[in-house]
């Protein structure tokens, strides 16, 4: 996921009002990325192109960091004037924005582990139920979906290659420029991000065009940019840039011919997206319940350890609570999913399990404190009364103290459950597709922010509101016996 820094880098020396160009530098090799030698500086073949284009149209172009998935929405909102970040010209996108003539012809490249023998192409992968990873909201993702190949989408382009190396997925299908920088062992690539033990599987295929997106009514800007690209093609400047980044292929000669791509694709209808949202809601509920069960067990153990354990055990319990309450759950999820396999190779958790573990550990710390407060609120006299009847401590805890403490514990515990229910939306960073992520996926490709958004919100409310009522009901029912 990209940072939302609005760092503005002017390109070109002209004094006119600059064009604001949106792109994502996060893992953006070779398009636009932070120079590893000088992270303040944004470089890439699109940066070189922007510079050349600024000279051609006589207007400076200023780079603005955005997240890749939000580029078209940012354009529509007016946050940026142009979007250029390996955006494929597709019929679906043409319904929302206008594109310049192409500045690059890409193809898709399938990459697998070097020892892969089970498949040679997408059809074989599909037949064997192997999972292919790709970047979300791209033409590659659309192709996998249309061809019914089992696939998993990521928010960044490095994640799929990492997961491939870790054997979490079986192949990666992405645009050739990316595949070159992550899987081709060419020592001349200056900014190669080569992952070990990968190979290209078969020739690249399914070509398409990168264009610069502008708002449909910015016709003057569109004409200026097209003119600029024309001149960069004629002067050989574009070819020079692509050569510099080792991206030139004979296919690029087709850039000199005009191509026509027309807007198309169907609007998502309620009946199309509802089943997908319901499936996402199911994942949200399952994730919430399993994580909370783990949090309750951990919380109880830690609370008891902190209250009744010998000194070292007590310190451990305090350490657990302070540590897991003190770090953001997002960081924890990221570490469990990406960090642990990097430190201990082979210990690769399924994303759902990683999410359960992350939320369980995080919420376990909160539960532990709630239970400790609840248990401490029961007077010491209750322990003594039970002891005087010959009840041992463990029996007293289970039969006398805990049942009373539960009434104190229940209200904050239920509000934690509701909070967790909503917090589960952050698991998209480790590629678990739950309700919020499904909303993001659907709107990324097809728009429909309002209708799909309202449906998603309704699904959340249908589940969280009754949970609130249930907690109040239990509170009343258990309260009267006091």
């Amino acid at each position, binding site marked *: 996921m990209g940072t939302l820094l609005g760092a503005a880098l002017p390109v070109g020396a002209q004094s006119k009002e600059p064009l604001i160009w949106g792109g994502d530098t996060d893992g953006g090799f070779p398009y636009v990325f932070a120079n590893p030698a000088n992270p303040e500086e944004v470089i890439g073949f699109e940066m070189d192109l922007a510079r050349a284009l600024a000279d051609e149209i006589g207007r400076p172009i200023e780079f603005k960091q955005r997240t890749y998935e939000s580029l078209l929405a940012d354009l529509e909102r007016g946050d940026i004037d142009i979007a250029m970040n390996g955006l494929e010209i597709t019929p679906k996108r043409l319904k929302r924005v206008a594109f310049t003539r192409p500045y690059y012809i890409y193809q898709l490249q399938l990459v697998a582990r070097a020892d892969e023998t089970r498949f040679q192409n997408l059809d074989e992968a599909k037949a064997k139920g192997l999972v292919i990873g790709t970047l979300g909201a791209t033409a590659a993702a659309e192709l996998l979906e249309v061809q019914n190949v089992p696939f998993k989408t990521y928010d960044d382009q490095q994640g799929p290659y990492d997961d491939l190396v870790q054997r979490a997925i079986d192949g990666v299908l992405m645009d050739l420029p990316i595949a070159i920088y992550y899987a081709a062992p060419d020592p001349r690539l200056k900014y190669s991000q080569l992952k070990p033990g990968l190979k290209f599987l078969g020739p690249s295929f399914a070509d398409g065009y990168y264009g610069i997106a502008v708002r449909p009514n910015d016709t003057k800007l569109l004409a200026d940019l097209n003119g600029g690209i024309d001149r960069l093609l004629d002067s050989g400047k574009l070819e020079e840039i692509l050569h510099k980044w080792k991206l030139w292929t004979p296919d690029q000669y087709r850039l000199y011919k005009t191509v026509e791509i027309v807007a198309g694709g169907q609007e998502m209808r309620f009946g199309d997206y509802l089943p997908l949202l319901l499936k996402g809601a199911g994942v949200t509920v399952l994730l919430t319940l399993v994580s909370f069960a783990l949090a309750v067990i951990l919380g109880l153990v830690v609370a008891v350890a902190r209250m009744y354990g010998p000194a070292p055990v007590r310190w451990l319990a305090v350490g657990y609570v302070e540590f897991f309450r003190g770090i953001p759950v997002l960081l924890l999820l990221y570490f469990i999913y990406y960090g642990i396999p990097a430190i201990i190779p082979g210990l690769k958790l399924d994303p759902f399990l990683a999410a359960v573990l992350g939320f369980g550990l995080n919420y376990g710390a909160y539960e532990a404190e709630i239970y400790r407060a609840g248990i401490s609120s029961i007077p010491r006299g209750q322990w003594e009364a039970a*002891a005087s009847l010959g009840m041992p401590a463990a029996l007293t805890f289970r039969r*006398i103290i805990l049942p009373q403490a539960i009434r104190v514990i229940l209200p904050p515990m239920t509000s934690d459950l509701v909070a967790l229910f909503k917090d589960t939306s952050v698991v998209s960073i480790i590629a678990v597709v739950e309700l919020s992520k499904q909303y993001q996926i659907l709107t990324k490709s097809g728009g429909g922010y309002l209708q799909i958004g309202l449906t998603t919100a309704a699904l959340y409310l249908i589940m969280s509101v009754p949970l609130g009522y249930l907690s109040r009901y239990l509170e009343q029912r258990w309260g009267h*016996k006091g």
Partner: protein
Amino acid sequence: MTWNIDIANVTKRFGPRLVLNEVSVSIQSGETVALLGPSGGGKSTLLRCLNGLNTFDAGEIRIGEHVLQPGNHAADLQAVRRVFGMVFQDFQLFPHLSVLDNVIEAPIQVLGWPRAKAVERAEPLLKRVGMAGHLHAYPGQLSGGQKQRVAIARALAMEPRGLLCDEITSALDPELKHEVLEVLEDLKRDGLTLILVTHEMGFARKAADRVVVLCDGKILEDGPPAQVLEQPRTERMKMFLQRVLG
């Protein structure tokens, strides 16, 4: 088997404060003993030492065949605690359990009785303390006197040899005190050993076989109520009686 109590040279400190100072006293099984004395004199502490709710620093307590020693949380502590039931000033009924469940909890959980047997024993006990009509009420619905009578039934359900009563009428209105004290007199007639920390001079005079007065961690007086309360030997005792009786 007799369940005599022998307290020998028991000393107990709370920080720098000497609460019990080499206290020695013997109590025969079946006796009713009132522990009197000014607040902070050590009487509640001594009572709680008898069933291990408080530990002590020196000396020894023998209860029948059981021996309690300093810091010694004996393996048979649970067995020691079952010799005497305990009733507290603030009742300490289990608020999440009904009257009946309060009484049968320990017999079922500790003695392993089947529920039917526990209920069969509990009902006459609750009837005896006048609470048969409230089996399914919860503690929150009862008056103080009713709570204390349930607490007595709960202690009796474990079939103890006697009861340790820690100021069990102090939190009650005068008319409610009366109903609890009546229950105690009834138990005394049955031959249970009763050790009562109390401020009820009238009850001590009428029902106790013996009055032991603790003051500043030492035994000030020990004898039949007529002697201790009517003809105190020490000036300290005379002053105490004047203050209490007004």
